[in-house]
């Protein structure tokens, strides 16, 4: 159940991998859509935390093109509903996330990404 809300906050944590380590690229993903309860207040509070371009690109990678390239100034309900869908209703069930810098592959199985590192990566 990797949702884009979490993917948008996740960078690579391999030792020494500190630049260009965000966002992780999706690979060979299987996606499921699951409805979630809409909460405009939560979304409004969360927006400042989002790396917008990374979210738009990740949405596209998963086949959703509903978000505008630029974050609108007015956060109306129509926009928030699209944001809600992209952040919270698209679940990556299988596949992997790959670091754009060091190439570390974080495998996703049954919706759970494996974030474990080897001793040399700590």
């Amino acid at each position, binding site marked *: 159940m990797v949702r884009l809300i979490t993917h948008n906050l996740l960078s690579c944590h391999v030792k020494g991998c500190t630049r260009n380590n965000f966002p992780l690229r999706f690979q060979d993903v299987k996606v499921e859509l699951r409805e979630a309860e809409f909460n405009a207040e939560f979304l409004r509070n969360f927006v400042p935390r989002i*790396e917008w371009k990374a979210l738009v690109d990740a949405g596209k990678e998963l086949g959703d093109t509903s978000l505008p390239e630029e974050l609108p100034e007015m956060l109306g309900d129509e926009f928030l509903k699209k944001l809600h869908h992209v952040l919270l209703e698209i679940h990556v069930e299988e596949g992997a996330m790959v670091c754009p810098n060091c190439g570390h592959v974080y495998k996703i199985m049954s919706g759970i990404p494996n*974030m474990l590192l080897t*001793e040399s990566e700590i």
Partner: protein
Amino acid sequence: MSRPELVAPPEIYYGDTEAKKYTSKCVLSTHSRKHSHPSSNFLPVPCQCSTRIQQIQSEMTYRALELLNLPEGEPKFLLDIGCGSGLSGEILDEEGHYWVGVDIAPSMLEVALEREVEGDLFLQDIGQGFGFRPGSFDGAISISVIQWLLNAETSHPSSSPPARLTRFFTSLYAALRNPSRAVLQFYPSSDDQIHLITSIAQRAGFGGGIVVDYPNSKKARKVFLCLFVGSGKMNDSVPRGLDGDGEEEV
């Protein structure tokens, strides 16, 4: 009973049998060797040991949420460190929060999946640190987990307890918003352990300290590490622990 963190690393200790204790319905046969059930002649019955574990866990989760001191009624984005089978996560769901849970035991995460909790789950060793971007979370809770960081996993220097604690607290501090709190309930086995943990947390930038509930009750005593990021609007003093023996609370 020996302390679980001395028996085996968590991903092994919390194998399938142990994980079953954290599900809502317990299959007695899977661990009847370890526990005697007075009523086990009359199967099926709810497993006493598992419901007791769950009750204690959920009480501690509510207490941790109270110590987080979040504004009333606002949905927040929280990190559940060592989320296990999702018992605490279910409570976070009920309270209207959004959350991410990390745990090192795959069999516990499988149970969390079966429960259909709302949060995202990660297979992660917290001693290796987090990769979350700065300011990702409005708060963090952890129930009965960080004592595991006090055991060296291998002889490699990167897996010494101070190295693991440092990576954990430094990356946790970065992942939290300013201001916010992290409330970590744990089972220290000595004052030295408390001192080691709090001093490394302070070096990572945290304020705050230890809260002890029911300090005079052998049974109900609970230790919470209550950590602050920034001070801002928050009261900088460490909250008071609860008095009494914990029995009056239902």
